[in-house]
């Protein structure tokens, strides 16, 4: 058979055969294959982007978490500092109060002592005065039996009294 002349039989069978091949493949093979390939591609792409999104979210969540942690720590520190301040203040206040109260008590005590002292002094004075009067009575009763003696004594006392 010739190399360069086309033969009718081959043209005929080629058209039929290739037509059938194309028909069958185009109907039963290529749509399924290309569709499932592109669908899978889309699916993989979606999953990749979702994974990226999830990673991003995780990162955000983590940073949020961290921020929350830092905030909590700050708050705790704040609370602790406040508590310390309050405690110090209370301590100072109570100290002041106690001091004042003590001062008051001391003052009162001092006043009481002074009062008691005054009272005792007055009593002692009264007692001494009474005793002096009694002694003086006795002495006078004795002394006044003698007239000169009486005079001398009165003078003496007067002298003494002036010195007092």
């Amino acid at each position: 058979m010739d190399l360069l002349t086309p033969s009718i039989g081959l043209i005929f069978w080629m058209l039929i055969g290739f037509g059938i091949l194309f028909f069958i493949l185009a109907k039963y093979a290529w749509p399924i294959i290309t569709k499932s390939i592109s669908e899978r591609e889309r699916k993989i792409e979606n999953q990749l982007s979702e994974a990226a999104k999830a990673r991003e979210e995780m990162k955000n969540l983590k940073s949020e978490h961290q921020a929350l942690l830092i905030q909590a720590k700050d708050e705790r520190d704040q609370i602790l500092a406040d508590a310390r301040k309050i405690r110090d203040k209370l301590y100072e206040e109570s100290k002041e109060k106690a001091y004042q109260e003590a001062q008051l008590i001391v003052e009162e005590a001092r006043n009481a002592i002074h009062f008691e002292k005054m009272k005792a002094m007055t009593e002692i004075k009264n007692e001494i005065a009474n005793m002096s009067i009694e002694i003086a009575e006795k002495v006078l009763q004795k002394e006044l039996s003698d007239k000169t003696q009486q005079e001398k004594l009165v003078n003496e006392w007067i002298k003494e009294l002036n010195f007092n």
Partner: protein
Amino acid sequence: MTYDRIKTPFICLSIVLITLFSPIFVQASSEEGKKFEPGQFIIEHITDSYGWHIAGEGEHAIGISLPIILIDNGTPVVFMSGKFHHGHAAYKGYALGFTPETKGKIVKLGGTHSGYTGTLEEGTSYEIDTNASLIDFSITKNVCSLFISIILLIFIFLSVAKQYKRRDGMAPKGLQSLLEPVILFIRDEVVIPSIGEKKYEKFLPYLLTLFFFILINNMMGLIPVFPGGANLTGNITITGILAIITFFITSFSSNKNYWKHIFNTPGVPWWLKIPIPLMPLVEIIGIFTKPFVLMVRLFANISAGHIIILGFICLVFIFGGMSPALGYGVSAVSIFFYLFMGLLELIVAFVQAFVFTLLTSLYIGLAMEEGHEEAHEEHHAPMSIEKE
């Protein structure tokens, strides 16, 4: 699971092994030849034939007898090609052509031998009925090979499609994972860049069919024994039909812009169009040269590959005719070159299928293009490949 994994390399390995042992088959066929004629030997191997010769020669030839279907003046005649005894016999008045003009064709004997069945004696003159109108629809070697490849393709892709259906959304496996990169390559590197993201889907099924059809026939042509060995994609009829289909698709999918580009090429001085329509003429010729070049390229590349391989094998017998020792010596070198060419042809098989598909999709893309700017840019892309 393991079966699937083993299957693919096994097929590749068997192809390589068959290729390796092919010189032995050929050697057997010319053991008792009288005078070895390399030219005739090669042409017989790359052209079509009525029977499928496997081994042996003359009386001891082993081959597959294929059906011959003739339409003789409207009446169909069917018989097996084995009846011809390789041109040594006539059947019901039909015989293989024996004159230089009718060589390789079927002729109808006329005169006293019309309707003759029996051996054709050498030295006897037989009259040929020149008035007979014989239309030859025989299942020749190439037609048979065409059917085998079509059945193979349908089987392969239907099973792959079934796999895709069954393993929806899962990773590819087995045959599926062998073919998926190729399908993706055709889609992403060939069809989408040439036709464009929007319109490619309509043409993808045809272009994939085209690619795999050329690829499988190129590869089968490299197998020297029965299921392969036919030079189908190196046959001008086959490549011509594929090119004509490309031509029709290109013409029917073309838009106004494409025809405007042909009849009134923009950016060309007016005196090239009026009064002598030089540019339109060139462009119109271009419409036909594109598919013509497609046809010739595939035909020439594949036939040339076959011719070179057969040439290396012929060397063994040419030198063997001089002295047997020389024949054995040369055969070692020949086999080495044959192996080298075989591997090269494996690349060519892929490249030619790729080029044909790429150019077809580029022509379709050009015919559907809207603007002018990209048209010129893309016009350069196939040029580098066309030198192939």
